[in-house]
């Protein structure tokens, strides 16, 4: 009875739409990075839905940060191996 809360996916689309003007003002290269950030957040949408945070955008930011840090940790591993190879 009545309207249910929007799904996490809908919330993410709403947040993306709210940032549309910001994205539009970015350079093309930065726009692609911006889109990549939201794609990264999409990977953890089920965790965001489970969290049911009062401020969903904070969970999306956390998801983006999580993916960024995974990338950093992966690159660190590569750099370490390369250093060992050339040691």
């Amino acid at each position, binding site marked *: 009875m*009545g309207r249910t809360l929007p799904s996490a996916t809908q919330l993410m689309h709403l947040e993306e739409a709210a940032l549309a003007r910001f994205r539009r003002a970015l350079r093309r290269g930065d726009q692609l990075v911006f889109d990549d950030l939201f794609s990264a957040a999409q990977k953890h949408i089920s965790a965001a839905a489970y969290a049911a945070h*009062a401020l969903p955008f904070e969970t999306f930011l956390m998801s983006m940060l999580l993916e960024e840090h995974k990338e950093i940790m992966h690159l660190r591993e590569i750099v370490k191996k390369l250093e060992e190879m050339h040691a």
Partner: protein
Amino acid sequence: MESPQTHHLQTSADEKRQQITTFPAPKTGKISLVVAPKTVVESMMSMLSTLALRGHVIVIDGGNRFDGYALARALRRRTHQVQPALKQVLLSRAFTCYQMVAVLAELPADGTPVVVLDMLSTFLDENVNLNKRKRLLDTSLNLLRRISEAAPVAVWARTHSTVGDEDRQLLISLLEAAQDVWELQAPEAPAHQPPLF
């Protein structure tokens, strides 16, 4: 009796896009009425956040318009302690005009602010005779007057693009009961500037 004070707010095209207009928090002793379309929800939540930061506030949602996320965002702009502030908000929903009267009748007159969202929605019910709806609305308004003697009361009456005769009659009753009226008007059409060539 103090004559109602009417504030006409003209939105620019940018403001309408942002959908935020600042309404002051209601004061004890008067019913503050906001007459505006549904785009005003964000502003109502902003006003609600002001009340929630002060203490308990009762929200009666007549048209399923309460936006918890908008309220959380409004609170987050003002404090890190969002959760405690959210817990101050006590939400009741009414789906019929009878329920609206029942919810208002059960409210304590203890000084807790009351905000009614989209009050007239439950009264636009063609299944209930218009005269009956008018009587129920009058009862609701009397209850709100009693509450306003001890607590701030704010009411939002949603306007529609097409206004029927019944809508108008019910809105008039609401306008007569309010002491402070905030009316959001659509932006004026920009003056046409003919091209240079």
